[in-house]
């Protein structure tokens, strides 16, 4: 078994002033060439986990513990220049809102060339390289696009440009934070297909964050489910979809509308509201909303047990009677 | 008295949270007290009294801020000058605020040609630098204190029109106000219940800021000789009188200047404190 490309161990994230836990303890690995999806509701800590890998946490939020090992280096302890070198070249990120993620007063071409400029020397071939990637992601009239400003493009097009920016230096790992959430459904499908194709072509690893289980099924190899700052279940896409162990995962799957189900039943939803990570003591965070909860669940916090293919953190997994 | 936790905290409470606001209020209060003393004549010396034998002497136990070239007590004159500056400025801003806010609200509410007219009028006044306009008006009107106040009022009316008009326009477009109009509520009631609460906060803040500008303008005018006339005391005039003797009598320049600075700082801090206290977003600059 080869070495993991990215290994996150016991990662904790909290606010700096008046500390509140936002991510309790997250442990997972990504193998080279593997695509992993992270699913969870707002507040589960999935976006923060993704941002912390590249050290892009917002002001007032910081890593509180644990390690992030990429290619042998612990990113939580790396110096700024090491991080800068990684960003955009070894690890790239695509963000959620294409409308605000681009510099409004800089031409698109320049913003793209900036990626090359930050890691290599710009030369005559650089423009051609950028234009080639723009074509690959499906931007029409590439020469004109290079001279355009972000506000001249639609959300879907801007997201394609962001993806082009991320792929330009062929990163080993692409992190995508809900890049399709802000887009129309039809555009969503296009972007998903584009990313899928690019990943396979470049044999990249990918970390894909989403709150929508339906989106992720055909995109990733393995799935991680997060709730209130913890991982509650992880496994291959097949395993999770066919045999969900954690009641929360089960609930998420049940709430997905099905194309094949013509019974017109009401969609099931999980009762209650998502738990805030900093209010969880030494208990199972999901217990208040769980139909299988017992006193054992509030006595201590369940740990994640299992293998790469399938693990769950629960006292009463679904398979149990 | 136990606070009811469900009742929202008032602006006063929030104001007290801001250190700069509190400091500003203290400075301002000090100056107001000082002026009141001057009004009632509770001064160590008569501001106009000349004691030639004591001329150009530094701060002493008798003359706390020293004396000028005519032997007049700078301390008493400073207090008297502060009183004059505040009188003129408060009058000016009161007039400007009253007229400006009324015009602004009417303009925003009635809209159409009236609004356009008022806006154009404000733009015209905005086109003039404050001191220049005040100068020009004072030159034609005369420079007694109420004429100066009127001149300054003209200069600072447009800003109140603008500050009052803005929220009116925003609120007018809001759905809940449109609904009340359809339901036939009288304009007066809409004004009172919906528009006024939104307009009060920015206006209060603007009053504090405009007062600070008015004091600077007034002292600028009297520095140039177009405000209070000698031998009366006015802070700007005192600075002007101190010019030729400043090298030998620093106190003649320093104390009136300090008074102006303190009151302007105080008003600015109070304005900031008010802005933070009354803004629902509770943002600090």
């Amino acid at each position: 078994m080869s070495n993991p490309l990215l290994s996150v161990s016991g990662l904790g994230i909290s606010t700096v002033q008046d500390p509140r836990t936002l991510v309790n303890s997250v442990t997972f690995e990504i193998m080279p060439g593997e695509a992993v999806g992270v699913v969870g509701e707002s507040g589960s800590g999935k976006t923060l986990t993704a941002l912390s890998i590249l050290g892009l946490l917002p002001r007032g939020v910081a890593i509180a513990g644990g390690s992030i090992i990429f290619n042998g280096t612990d990113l939580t302890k790396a110096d700024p220049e090491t991080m800068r070198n990684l960003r955009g070249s070894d690890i790239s990120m695509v963000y959620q809102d294409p409308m605000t993620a681009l510099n409004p007063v800089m031409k698109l071409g320049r913003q793209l060339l900036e990626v090359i400029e930050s890691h290599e020397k710009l030369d005559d071939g650089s423009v051609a390289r950028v234009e080639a990637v723009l074509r690959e992601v499906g931007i029409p009239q590439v020469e004109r696009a290079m001279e355009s400003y972000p506000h001249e493009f639609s959300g879907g097009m801007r997201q394609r440009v962001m993806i082009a920016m991320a792929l330009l230096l062929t990163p080993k790992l692409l992190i995508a934070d809900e890049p399709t959430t802000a887009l129309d459904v039809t555009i969503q499908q296009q972007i998903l297909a584009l990313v899928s194709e690019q990943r396979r072509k470049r044999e990249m690893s990918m970390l894909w964050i989403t709150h929508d289980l339906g989106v992720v099924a055909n995109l990733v190899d393995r799935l991680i489910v997060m709730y209130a700052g913890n991982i509650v279940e992880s496994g291959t896409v097949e395993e999770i979809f066919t045999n969900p162990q954690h009641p929360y995962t089960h609930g998420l799957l049940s709430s997905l509308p099905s194309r094949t189900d013509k019974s017109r039943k009401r969609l099931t939803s999980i009762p209650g509201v998502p738990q805030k990570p900093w209010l969880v003591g030494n208990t199972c965070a999901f217990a208040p909303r769980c139909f299988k909860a017992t006193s054992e669940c509030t006595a201590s916090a369940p740990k994640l047990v299992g293998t790469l293919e399938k693990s769950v953190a629960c006292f009463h997994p679904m398979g149990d009677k | 008295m136990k606070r009811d936790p469900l009742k929202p905290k008032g602006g006063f409470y929030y104001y007290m949270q801001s250190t700069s606001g509190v400091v500003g209020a203290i400075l301002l209060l000090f100056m107001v007290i000082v002026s009141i003393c001057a009004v009632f004549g509770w001064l160590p010396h008569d501001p106009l009294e000349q004691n030639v034998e004591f001329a150009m002497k530094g701060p002493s136990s008798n003359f706390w801020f020293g004396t000028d070239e005519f032997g007049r007590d700078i301390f008493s004159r400073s207090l008297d000058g502060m009183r004059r500056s505040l009188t003129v400025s408060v009058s000016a801003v009161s007039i400007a605020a009253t007229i400006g806010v009324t015009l602004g609200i009417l303009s925003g509410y009635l809209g159409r040609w009236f609004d356009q007219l008022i806006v154009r009028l404000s733009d015209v006044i905005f086109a003039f630098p404050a001191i220049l306009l005040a100068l020009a008006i004072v030159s034609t009107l005369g420079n007694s204190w109420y004429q100066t106040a009127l001149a300054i009022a003209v200069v600072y009316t447009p800003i109140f029109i603008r500050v009052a008009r803005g929220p009116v326009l925003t609120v007018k477009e809001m759905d809940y106000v449109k609904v009340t109009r359809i339901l036939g509520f009288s304009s007066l009631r809409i004004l009172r219940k919906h528009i006024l609460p939104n307009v009060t906060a920015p206006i209060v803040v603007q009053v504090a800021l405009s007062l600070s500008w008015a004091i600077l303008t007034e002292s600028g005018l009297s520095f140039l000789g177009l405000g209070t006339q000698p031998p009366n005391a006015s802070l700007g005039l005192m600075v002007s009188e101190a010019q030729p003797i400043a090298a030998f009598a620093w106190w003649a320049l320093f104390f009136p200047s300090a008074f102006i600075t303190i009151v302007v700082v105080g008003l600015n801090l109070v304005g900031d404190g008010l802005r933070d206290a009354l803004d629902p977003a509770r943002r600090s600059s």
Partner: protein
Amino acid sequence: MSFGERTSRILLSTPVLRIGSVLSTLFGISIFVFLVLRVIPGDSIIGAFGIETGVLTPEQIDQLKIYYGIDKSLPMQYLSWMQSFLTGNMGYSYSTGISIASLTAKALPVTIELALIGTILGVIMGIAVGTFSARKPGSIRDFAGQLFGLMALAVPGFVLSTTIVTIMANKFHYFPNGYEFVRLWEDPWMNLQQMMFPGLVLGIAVAAPVMRTTRSALLETVDKDFVRTAIGKGVNSRKVQTRHILRNSLIPIVTMTGIQFGYLLGGAVIVENIFSLPGMGRQVLYAITKREYATVQSSVMVFAILFIAINVITDLIYRKIDPRIKK
């Protein structure tokens, strides 16, 4: 597109609308100046006219009559004035017999030079202190920066000027403004020395609001998503500061600078007086004390036109910086 649609499109297109707006403001200004400066002292002007015109030649007196619209009804007076002003007849100074137009031509460049120097100094100081403050919000340096901004605002220009004069002239015996004023093209070095202190005083007045705007614009931009994208691409921190943060903060700074220019012109009146600069400010002041109404009227009009011109220029610069605005 119908004819009506096409016409309204052209009429409402931005350049036409803006020129129309500027012209109507200028029109309004002229009426305002006329009302305030002529109507109220109306009788004294007529009175003075008879007595104090000894220095002027008969032709000059005629020109001045037209300028004032003597013996005409009020609206005709205004039209007469406007016609004169627009054709270059700005009246004559009673005491010297020189045409106000030529006085203005000499004085205007001085004021413009002073205003430019003041603005440049102010913007440099303001952006420098604002950036310094914004680096660590809430820290001691931030407090110091904000204190500077507050003091720059609260200490009046005339106080600062008087202090400089006192210290420089009396203690250091260095006071270039004590000598006769030289023009920029006569002796650039001396001219700049004479502009230095007054320019500094005006600059400090400009620096305060520019500093505040810079600080808040920077703090706001730093949290924006595209800054995160730039960092995430591996752009080095210096380039992130300049190309992404500063560049996007410029717009409010430019706007604020344009607004400040108006106050700068006002400050020029005081500063020109103290530092003996023969500019428009001193001209107006002198005219007021000597009751030279024509000079006051023409000069105030010139000031206002200058201010409007600066507004238009600021607007144009604004459009150049922000590609989101359609030209």
